[in-house]
């Protein structure tokens, strides 16, 4: 079976769902409309000649203070033709939502939960969208750019006593 060019096939069949194509360092990135991400993924998985049957990675990125603020990158791999593809969707800063692709690949289950926990992106249709890495009652989404790192200032001799007084040492 011959491998078809994913960009041409996508532009031909998906039409306006494809917003942009970027080629950088030998990798192809197709920017897609977020509302139609499930159709796009099904297209890439099931079409003969493309057959991207493996989801490698779901990475969420925060481009604060640019708008659109969030991006989710799906890294796809075709074991049959041995090639990779990245699908990228851009999401607005307030209320970022997009459909979940767990119906297409089950591997997205834990990865989307992590994107929700760390960045606050809501995946509609996810079977179990809860916090996964942080405690259940944590407030805030840690990997956002406006969330502080939360570091404790380093204790030098000039501020040692001040920090020591505030540190919650454990009693017996």
């Amino acid at each position: 079976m011959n491998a078809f060019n994913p960009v041409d096939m996508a532009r031909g069949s998906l039409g306006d769902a494809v917003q942009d194509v970027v080629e950088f360092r030998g990798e192809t990135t197709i920017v897609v409309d977020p509302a139609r991400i499930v159709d796009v993924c099904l297209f890439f998985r099931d079409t003969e000649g493309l057959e991207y049957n493996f989801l490698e990675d779901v990475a969420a990125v925060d481009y604060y203070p640019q708008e659109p603020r969030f991006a989710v990158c799906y890294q796809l791999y075709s074991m049959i033709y041995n090639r990779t593809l990245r699908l990228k969707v851009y999401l607005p800063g307030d209320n970022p939502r997009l459909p979940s692709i767990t119906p297409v690949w089950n591997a997205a289950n834990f990865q989307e939960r992590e994107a929700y926990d760390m960045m606050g992106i809501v995946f509609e249709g996810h079977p179990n969208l809860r916090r996964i890495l942080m405690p259940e009652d944590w407030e805030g989404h840690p990997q956002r750019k406006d969330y502080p790192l939360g570091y404790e200032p380093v204790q030098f001799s000039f501020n040692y006593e001040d920090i020591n007084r505030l540190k919650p040492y454990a009693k017996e």
Partner: protein
Amino acid sequence: MGIAGKLGNLGVVTTTLETAVNWGRTNAMWPMLFGLACCAIEMMSTQASNYDLSRFGMELMRPSPRQSDLMIVAGRVTRKMAPVLRQLYDQMPHPKWVLAMGDCASCSGVFNNYAVVQGVDEVVPVDVYVAGCPPRPEQLIHGIMTLHEKVKGERIADWAS
């Protein structure tokens, strides 16, 4: 000094009892299996045949906190894990000691951020801190020896009250 002097002054008996009890405690201190991260692998290496921990009486790593004396906190303690750590510490019966193994347990090490507790002494009281990332087995054994010295110096007045 005659027998009467020794019988009258019970100081001799007390000191010998302390030494005996502390000797018993140090030579058979059972650690609790509390390996969290990379330091746990070095703790397992210390347990294995090259740097043998069983020559110090510590070959039995007890998973149950009710049966152990020493909690070696090996690895980084995160905010999600801290309540679990405190619950396990509370379940250990007296006498109990805590050894903070590695930089992450002592002072959060490389990770100065929202997710890691900045030193496990915020959660449980620590007796000995062992530095290193991860500490070599020799460093851990030195830490255990230091703890033994500390235990040998304990007096009845402290723990019998």
